[in-house]
């Protein structure tokens, strides 16, 4: 039942309902464990000072390469943390930040991408990470970012008939 994840081999199967005292490998701050996937990766990663920023790797990709990044990180065994929309009104840009964490090595990776602010459009990654569906619906609720290919892009937290996007900087109730 316990399929081993790519990257690290996971713990051996335990008998039913006993409490094995296996602790997760403590990820030292620098250099973090599990960086070997960098050699295989095609994404423009820069290492970031974890003590200041809170994540290890950061990559800035175009909006079309977001799904490719998701596919690669899914292959490497990463889990999707969250999808954050940021409305840069001054630069007239809409940014989406994809956070990933690795359940076995504790590595933290951030993929960010920017598009024009008028009608922002991103390809959905819910085909790769089904958990992303809700995060994308929420980003659509708050910022009006359309995720093409999303199964049901209806309001998630706002009422069903909501057409306003409250977290945009120019939102007036």
């Amino acid at each position, binding site marked *: *039942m*316990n*399929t081993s*994840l790519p990257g690290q081999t*996971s*713990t051996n*199967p*335990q008998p*039913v*309902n006993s*409490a*094995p*005292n*296996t*602790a*997760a490998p*403590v*990820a030292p701050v620098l250099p973090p464990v599990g960086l070997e996937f960098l050699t295989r990766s095609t994404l423009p990663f820069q290492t970031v000072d974890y*003590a*200041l*920023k*809170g*994540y290890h790797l950061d990559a800035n990709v175009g909006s079309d390469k977001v799904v490719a990044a998701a596919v690669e990180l*899914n292959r490497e*065994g*990463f*889990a*999707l*943390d*969250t999808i*954050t929309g*940021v*409305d840069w009104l001054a630069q007239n840009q809409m940014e989406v*930040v994809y*956070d990933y*964490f690795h*359940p*076995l*090595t*504790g590595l*933290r990776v*951030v993929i960010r991408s920017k598009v024009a602010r008028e009608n922002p459009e991103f390809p959905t990654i819910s085909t790769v*990470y*089904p*958990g992303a*569906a*809700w*995060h994308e619906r929420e980003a659509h609720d*708050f910022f009006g970012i359309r995720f093409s290919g999303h199964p049901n892009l209806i*309001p*998630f*937290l*706002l*009422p069903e008939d909501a057409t306003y996007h*409250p*977290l945009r900087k120019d939102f007036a109730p």
Partner: protein
Amino acid sequence: MIIKEDSVLTQREAPSETFILNLGPQHPATHGVLRVKMTMDGEFVTRAEPVCGYIHRMQEKMAENRTYAQYLPNTSRIDYLSAMTYTHAFVGVVERAAKLQVPRRAEYIRVITSELNRISSHLVWWGAFLLDLGGFTPLLYAFDDREKILDLLEGVTGARLTYAYYRIGGLYNDVDDAFLNGTRAFVAHMRPRLKMYRELVTENIILRKRLVRIGMVTDQMCRRYGASGPVIRGSGVPYDVRKAEPYSAYPDFDFDIPCFTEGDSMARYLVRLEEIAQSLRIIEQALDRLPSGPVMAEKVPRVLKLPVGDYCYAVEAARGRFMVRLVSDNKEIPYRLKLRTPCLSNLSLFEEASQGMLLPDALAFMGSLDLVIPDIDR
């Protein structure tokens, strides 16, 4: 009586139609205002689609017109059962961005109060979960113990549930001896109680019949949905933010991550009960090695302006990984504050995992996910 052409008279095996059951916002088992639209075929769930947003309180919108100090009380109202850990994340991200050095004693007290809060949260879950399964008396036992924790925390923070005890740079006030002795007495009192809970409830055959092999969640499903906390630890992956991304004073303590590989509701149940024992261990170690000294950083700027950029801070809340992503543009209010809450990801795997389940099993499965609905809606 109009006989439809595919009526039972003409057909050998009449298919029963599916109907949509609204496990609506008002339901005793949802412990809040979660609505699940369940397409049912008889007693079996063919598709369960959670509908959220009934308690959406604009936490992230409020962050954009509150200074850092003003936003503190909000953090304990996102997941009010583990309010300390949520305040810890928000305060941590601000300290990380402002490069503030929190004194050692404050970090230790933060660990003690966070672990006490984790135990009180697991006790509420344990009482409410068994209430869902039909057992009425465990709730009274659990709340009786929980009141002891609330007395301790109330003595120091002044609040029972929504403490805004941590401040940017340290703590609101120092703990007194009553708190320290009371905590030691509580740890001594809680251990035999845990043994009693195991005999009274965990070894009960009815509970095992309701939970073992019910609500199977594989580690791959946990990873693809981003589930964390007891959900992923019940499926064989020992992921705990206190070990994976060590923060505050956790590296100083020696504790284990309870992890079971079955991935059923029983595994998640046992992980949480085992976690209470581990939290007691951490509290004991922290009490023994509590350093003296100040509890507040020396120079905390009155008006805090954080350097431009985005910062993250993740903590292990009672329900899983809670991460705060702060985007700052060097003003006194944050430009954008994203709250990554564990319950949203834990619930997102409910739709796929509950297909083909019996309705009572789906409710037991939802109870084992330990959801706090304002945590999902924020």
